[in-house]
């Protein structure tokens, strides 16, 4: 705050620019930067303390309520186990079809499968409401290969099987 006006200022009119320049050259009070730094470090300490107290509050809460903590933990474990089992079952392969000799005991309820495979129809009209999915059911063997899952799409050009599935039904 040290502005020294010119010596002959009494005879001279001061211009607005001179007045405005007083602001531009005003010196701040001593120790301004130090006080700002102190204030900033206090604020940083406050922020760190607030963050730490949020953690300690959570720790205190769970240690004061051990049953709640245990129940939460068990619930989380069960949930994770459920997710894991669901994933395991969804990716498990389908069981192979049961091969039965025609006329044998239990053959009526069994899936008849021709040893050499059957020819899949070229176009299968979807019976379900799910458009675009071709459902071939379990146990349909094409060219002796493993049965396809329900959502499998069967290619149109297939080699003809030696025996058809109808022979198994006779």
């Amino acid at each position, binding site marked *: 705050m040290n502005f020294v006006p010119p010596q002959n*200022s009494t005879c001279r009119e001061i211009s607005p620019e001179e007045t405005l320049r007083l602001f531009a050259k005003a010196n701040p009070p001593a120790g301004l930067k130090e006080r700002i730094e102190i*204030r900033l470090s206090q604020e*940083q300490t406050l922020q760190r303390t607030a963050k730490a107290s949020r953690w300690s509050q959570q720790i205190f809460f769970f240690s004061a309520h051990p049953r709640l903590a245990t129940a939460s933990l068990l619930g989380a474990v069960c949930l994770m186990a459920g997710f894991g089992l669901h994933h395991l079952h969804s990716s498990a392969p389908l069981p192979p079809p049961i091969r039965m000799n025609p006329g044998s005991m239990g053959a009526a309820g069994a899936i008849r499968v021709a040893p050499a495979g059957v020819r899949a129809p070229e176009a299968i009209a979807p019976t379900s409401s799910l458009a675009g999915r071709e459902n071939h059911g379990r146990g349909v063997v094409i060219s002796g290969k493993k049965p396809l899952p329900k959502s499998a799409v069967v290619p149109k050009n297939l080699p003809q099987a030696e025996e058809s599935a109808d022979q198994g039904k006779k």
Partner: protein
Amino acid sequence: MSSAQIAGWMGTTVTPAQEESGNSAALISALVEQYSTMLYRVAYSVTRNASEAEDAVQEAFLRVLRHRDELGEIRDHRVWLIRIVWNIVLDKKRRAKSRPEAEDIEDFSRLLVSAEISADEYAIAAQQHAQILVQIDQLPEKERRVLLLSAFEELSTVQIASILGTTDSAVRARLFRARKQLQAALEKQRRQQ
């Protein structure tokens, strides 16, 4: 899960986040060192009060601390800081009750230091400056703000436009009008005296 295990997680070595926090703290300290004086002068030009101007500068740097994550995105730190402190002092002025004008002039007159002039000359100079300030305060708000910021030679009209959120041409037009109106008001005052 024990509290010791959780505390163990917290007791790690310096993480990238902590390292980034250290870098921003160093940058803020550098900004304080470089711009605190100028920010004080800008704040003082509006508040005309030393303690209020200092409060405004401190508040500005506190806001910088709270938004330290954005420091890397700022191109011109000086203009950014001036805009922050400018908005702070304008908010304070809006919310503050009207203060006796004599207090402002008394505080302002401390800017004048009688070195090689007599007490009379000092008094005359102080009176003239006070009269000019009164006329400046009676200018329309937009013109007054542009005029105050134009006192800082480091700021171009483009930078002043950025601080005020307007265009360069608007700043030039307002500056021209402000000087013209101020000159007319001072001439009228001198004729009356």
